């Protein structure tokens, strides 16, 4: 299981949950996680494919091939709007 932090519009699209818990069976790369999201949360998956939502692993922006290990801190980041 991995826990994924949600913010802003991704939180809204997941029914206002602050985080998701997903079983990541094999592969354990960001692209595998995105495939799972495509199934359960297609709107979020689409935003990731369009690069509107970024995936972070341990507080750094990740790419498709970034590995995910137990205990990693994962988050889905909508477009930043600080300042």
């Amino acid at each position, binding site marked *: 299981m991995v826990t994924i*932090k949600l*913010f*802003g*519009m991704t939180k*809204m699209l997941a029914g206002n949950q602050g985080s998701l818990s997903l079983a990541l069976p094999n592969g354990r790369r960001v692209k595998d996680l995105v495939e799972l999201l495509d199934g359960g949360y297609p709107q979020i998956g689409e935003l990731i494919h369009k690069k*509107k939502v970024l995936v*972070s692993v341990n*507080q750094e922006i990740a790419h498709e091939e970034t590995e995910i290990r137990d205990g990693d*801190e994962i*988050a889905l*980041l*909508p*477009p*930043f*709007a*600080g*300042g």
Partner: protein
Amino acid sequence: MEPIDESQLVRVQRENFSIDRELDRVKSRSKRIGGIATFLGIARDRSKGRDVDSITFEHYEGMAEKKLREIRERGLKDFDILELLIIHRYGEITIGENIVLIIAGAEHRAEAFRACKWAIDELKQITPIWKLEHTPEGEVWVEEHP
């Protein structure tokens, strides 16, 4: 350099801040500072043609602070400045209230301006902070960088 708690120079906080107090913090870092450029972001009553009643900022705690620390450190390295302070607020902010403060202190003004402008541009690009605008028609998550 006088002793100072460096964590005070980069903050994400709910409460408002005093610009005078933060300027004193920057000034206390070096008597060589001759020019200080400051950027203050304020909640506006209009955004892209919509009326706005108030704004709520959400941040990714931990990562937001980390990115702001990175901006301070790169700013100190890449510009000829003596100090760079960055504060961003979160939570609900009413119109006219302070949102973000950048202070760049340098010997000379040109570098202070350059670093200050760079820091706020960079903050908007890389810091995980989100803005929910409360308007008469409902709430909108703002996408500054589509």
